[in-house]
Every structure is written in structure tokens, then in C-alpha cells.
């Protein structure tokens, strides 16, 4: 197979030495069928062992290889050389602090995922006779798309609202909450919406839609958020009309 010479322009940052990030260029002889992650691995193995970045599965499952590729939040194992020009700029995911080189600090979104209460909440007691909760296929398909998220955080890197205000719960966590709200076995919707339809929740999203466009797993967090806005508004009026707390 013929090789193609690609110039990688990689953002570097060493917290012990650098005041600010800078760019380093590498000439990489790429195979035609390589993903951009292969080119980065080539640099690490053959040119510069000091380069730091995250990856694991190389098959769009682990969600750890998200980076900016020519300004677009991308899974680098799913972004192919053949679709890119001869010069490719690689940066750590935008909207996140840089730990080192291409590695970002994810602590903030890890907390956000917990606010979504991503587990089945029951008010009624479970079936007593050791039976499992059954669920029809139709009921599963209502939320299946939202279970595909691999927490790659590309959506957070694309979201301008998160970039401007890091207290916004953000696309993946809200999509995750929506996944449980739609689950026929769950009874925690009102409890979740109390938090997620409040400050920093769904109403902070201005429906830019960028999150859905970059999502490598077609989760469509923007859709989840708009649906939650409608649910949140319904829940608000339900509580108002029943004389409960607003």
C-alpha cells in the first residue's frame, strides 16, 4: 500500500515547564487506511515518546480518544486520514483544562454525570416474587439511542454554553438523565427534573445543536434536552395545579 505524508501539528503543554501550550510539528508517513489515532501512535512509538494522550480500544467503545481534529471535536480512532488534508492540527478537547499535551481534566463532567442520577429509581416496591421488571421492545426503543453514549465528551467540547459557563450540566449528562426518564421501569422523572429543569439545567441550552452534530455515536443530546424542556414545563404545571411546591 502506498504511504501518504501527513504533517501533524500537535498542541503540547508540559505543566512543569510551559507557561502556555504551543505547537509541535511531526512528519508522519501514514498508511491510507489509518485513523488519525494511528498517526499519533506512530509519533509516540517512532518520533517522540514524551507525547501524552489517552486512548484504549481503537474501536469507538472506550470513549477516551476524543480530541480536536482541525478544530472539530472528534474520536480520533473514528476519524480517518483519507478524509483529511495533508496538514492536520490536533488539540486537546476544547472547553476543558489541559492536564498535559492532549490529556484534559474531566473532573467537572464526572460530577455532572452524577447529578443526572443515572440509575433506576423506584417509588413502588419491586415485584415481590423474585420476578424481574419486564420491558417491551417498543418501550426499550424509546430510549435505546441514549444508551449508546461512550462519555467521549466531544459534545462538551462542541457546546458553546458549556464553554461560556462550566456550571451548565451539559449535553451528555442531560441525555443520560433523559435515558432514565424514558425508561418504563423508572419512577424518578419528577425527582430528576427538579434538579435538571432548574438552574444550570436544560434551560441553559440554547439549542445550538453542535453537540448532536459532533457526537460519534449518534446519541443526539440536543434532542434529549429539548424533550426534557417540554417535560420540565409539564412537570412544573402539574406541581403548580396540584398545589404542590413549584
Amino acid at each position, binding site marked *: 500500500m502506498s504511504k501518504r505524508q501527513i504533517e501533524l501539528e500537535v498542541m503540547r503543554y508540559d505543566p512543569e515547564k510551559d507557561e502556555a501550550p504551543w505547537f509541535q510539528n511531526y512528519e508522519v508517513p501514514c498508511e491510507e487506511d489509518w485513523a488519525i489515532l494511528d498517526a499519533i501512535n506512530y509519533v509516540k512509538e517512532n518520533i517522540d515518546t514524551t507525547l501524552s494522550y489517552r486512548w484504549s480500544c481503537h474501536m469507538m467503545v472506550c470513549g477516551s480518544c476524543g480530541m480536536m481534529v482541525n478544530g472539530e471535536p472528534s474520536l480520533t480512532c473514528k476519524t480517518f486520514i483519507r478524509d483529511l488534508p495533508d496538514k492536520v492540527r490536533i488539540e486537546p478537547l*476544547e472547553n476543558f483544562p*489541559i492536564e498535559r499535551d492532549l490529556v484534559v481534566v474531566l473532573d467537572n463532567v464526572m460530577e455532572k454525570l452524577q447529578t443526572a442520577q443515572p440509575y433506576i429509581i423506584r417509588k413502588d416496591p419491586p415485584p415481590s416474587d423474585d420476578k424481574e421488571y419486564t420491558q417491551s421492545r417498543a418501550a426499550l426503543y424509546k430510549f435505546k439511542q441514549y444508551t449508546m453514549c461512550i462519555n467521549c465528551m466531544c459534545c462538551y467540547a462542541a457546546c458553546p454554553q458549556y464553554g461560556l459557563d462550566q456550571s451548565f450540566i451539559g449535553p451528555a449528562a442531560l441525555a443520560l438523565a433523559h435515558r432514565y426518564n424514558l425508561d418504563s421501569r423508572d419512577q424518578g422523572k419528577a425527582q430528576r427534573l427538579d434538579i435538571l429543569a432548574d438552574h444550570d439545567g436544560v434551560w441553559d441550552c440554547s439549542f445550538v445543536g453542535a453537540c448532536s*452534530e459532533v457526537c460519534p455515536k449518534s446519541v443526539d443530546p440536543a434532542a434529549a434536552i429539548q424533550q426534557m424542556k417540554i417535560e420540565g414545563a409539564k412537570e412544573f404545571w402539574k406541581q403548580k395545579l396540584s398545589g404542590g411546591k413549584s
Partner: protein
Amino acid sequence: MSRQPYIRPMSKTTWYMRNGRYKVYMLREMTCLLVGFYSFLVIFGLAALSSAERWNAFLASQQNAAMIAFHGFALIYFLIYQTFAWFELAPKAMPLQIGEKKLSDSYIVIAHYIVWAVLSAFIFWLAGVF
């Protein structure tokens, strides 16, 4: 090993210049200026209904090249572009699943256009256009 994460600043005033996607979003959101302007126009028009004289003056104020150009621009930018953009997004906010199958987005979009056409026809009828 000391941790010293580097935070890349995001400009509060020029962030939407960062990429084409944000610019398109801003174009969509800026239609709110036209909505605001039109609201004022309608309020002025309603106020002018108080006398034939004022109403004629209001009509006259709309009948010059600049106003006609503005109405034309507003029609294309606001009505056509805005409607198109929002109808495209509508299936996201209200997906429909029938049995195990999700209804194709295009049905929902088309339904919106039909309702729009019917309502517009009704308003034209009210206004005595036909």
C-alpha cells in the same frame, strides 16, 4: 509531579466566530431583532387605527423603497430561513414512535409545513385576500 492544568480562555464577546456552526446559530438567533422590530411596527399600526388620517400616514410611511426592501429582506431572512431552520429541528423536540418504529423525521417536518400553509391560508382569507 505538580498539577497545573492550563485553561484556554473563551471570549465572552467573540466566541461565535470560533467556527461556522456557531455563526449559523448566531444568524438564526439574530432573527429576534426582526421579531422585535416587527412587534413595534404592529403596535404603531394598531395605534394608527385611531383615525383615518393617522392610518393613512402609517401606510404612507411604509410605501418607500427602503421600507419595501426591508420588508422583502425580513420576509426572506426571517420567515423563510427561520421557519425552515425551526421546522428542521421540530422532530428532535417531539419524536413520535409508533409501536417499535420511530416515525421518520420527514413526516413531522412535512406536517409542520402543512399546518403552516393551512393557517396562512386562513389568515389570508380573514384579511380578504381571497
